[in-house]
């Protein structure tokens, strides 16, 4: 029998859903529960698509996916291998942008976001997806998160880990 452990963790601004399962597992989500807008694969491979849509994307371990176009849709995932997926979910109507922090990104560039002629009200967060990245000398672990605020500076050492950067477009 194929199985999957699913759980959800949240803060007031966003949620993290986690799916850890076996090869062959099929997961379907309806528009009400489909609030995932970014996805990161810790390991495994699986096909993901809107239901009845022949076009699919393949989730692979170690990669980050922008799945905003699948929000509030009927979607299906089929695991081609044992898998561990982490989803970034929105909890309200605000839009988000998201990406992984690059290996060569030794500090966060918040100036380009906030140093604008008109005040910017976006809020930015970092989320640890894997490993133990070090930010301002603090070692993070999976599911740790922090709101990062301009003009404070944030020095980053990914330390082999994976850190997501998310901007809430307020």
């Amino acid at each position, binding site marked *: 029998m194929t199985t999957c452990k699913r*759980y959800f963790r949240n*803060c007031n601004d966003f949620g993290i859903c986690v799916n850890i399962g076996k090869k062959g597992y099929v997961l379907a989500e309806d528009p009400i529960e489909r609030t995932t807008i970014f996805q990161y694969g810790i390991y495994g491979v699986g096909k993901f698509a809107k239901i009845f849509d022949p076009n699919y994307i393949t989730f692979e371990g170690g990669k980050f996916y922008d799945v905003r176009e699948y929000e509030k849709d009927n979607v299906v995932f089929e695991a081609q291998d044992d898998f561990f997926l982490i989803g970034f979910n929105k909890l309200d109507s605000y839009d988000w942008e998201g990406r992984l922090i690059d290996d060569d990104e030794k500090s966060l560039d918040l100036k380009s976001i906030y140093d604008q002629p008109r005040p910017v009200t976006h809020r930015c967060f970092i989320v640890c997806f894997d490993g133990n990245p070090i930010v301002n000398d603090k070692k993070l672990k999976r599911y740790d998160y*922090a709101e990062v605020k301009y003009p404070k500076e944030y020095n980053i050492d990914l330390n082999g880990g994976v850190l997501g950067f998310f901007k809430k477009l307020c």
Partner: protein
Amino acid sequence: MIVPNILFKVISNDPINKSLVVKYCRENAQKFIEDYRSYNISYSNLDFTSPEALVESIRSIGTSIVIDQLNSEPILDENKSSGEIHSLDLDEYVGKIVSVTLDPTGDLNQIEL
């Protein structure tokens, strides 16, 4: 958290002030219930609609007390953690005591940077 079975013992009843003095402990406690501290409970916190409801209301007050008792029990020196192990190699865990904190909230862990 799984709540253990609870024992309570009414030490005294004060109808004039409408209160009880009660001791609580978990059913499998390793001390006598007499050795635990007493709590004063107002009748206003109790449900007198039936005997079952009365017992349930006394139990309900005791749940957090018993969980606090459990959490405040001292750690035996022999059970103290050997420290954090960050490894997928099971051999590194052999013979060591690992302390794991349960996060019952389901919330993400916010870090101040």
